[in-house]
């Protein structure tokens, strides 16, 4: 059965991609956040460029921080953003 996830972008990631969120279907081979990033990059070259440096990105699965190696599991929302700078 096809899984899907809502991917949500913030700050310069959102601005450079030109999109604030998108619903994406995940094939069975997609296990980790890194897999999602690869899939997005293969789909569109601009994504590969913008999301290339995972050191400059932070990730949250269903509003909890994750790493690029974190398993997507049954998460409904993946957020991709730069390091936070509030306060």
């Amino acid at each position: 059965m096809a899984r899907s996830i809502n991917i949500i972008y913030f700050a310069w990631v959102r601005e450079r991609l030109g999109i604030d969120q998108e619903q994406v279907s995940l094939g069975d081979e997609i296990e980790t956040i890194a897999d999602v990033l690869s899939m997005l990059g293969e789909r569109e070259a601009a994504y590969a460029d913008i999301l290339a440096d995972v050191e400059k990105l932070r990730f949250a699965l269903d509003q909890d921080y994750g790493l690029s190696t974190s398993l997507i599991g049954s998460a409904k929302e993946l957020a991709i953003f730069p390091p936070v700078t509030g306060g």
Partner: protein
Amino acid sequence: MIKIEVGPADFDIGAETLHVAGQGGGAIASFVGQVRDDGNLASLELEHYPAMTQKALGEIAEKAVSDWVLHAVTIVHRVGKLSVGDNIVLVITGSDHRQAAIESCSFIMDKLKTVAPFWKKETRADGAVKWIEERASDVEASEKWKR
């Protein structure tokens, strides 16, 4: 006892302090962060991740309450477009003891800076726009807590 507010509205430091003080203890520590005038800043735009912000701030406050003996914690963080001198963030802690109040206030600010999903974009007087980058000193300050 934990109060968290995130939104465009400004806050009233005196009223928020009274609110914390009214919950007991005799020691109230607070920190206010404002948009700093560094010479040619025109404005600051604060973006956040609404679904995650409340949760992240709530977890920081809960951790403070579990690690120090506190009567109250208030965190207010503004979002949207702000000008030089505007309030950005307010953290107030109330305790029976001043060290607990001051330390936990410092802890909350350090964690908020590195964990809460806010992003600042600054516009310079000449129109240049830039997303503020993470500072190594903030990461160090956050990690030093070992909690």
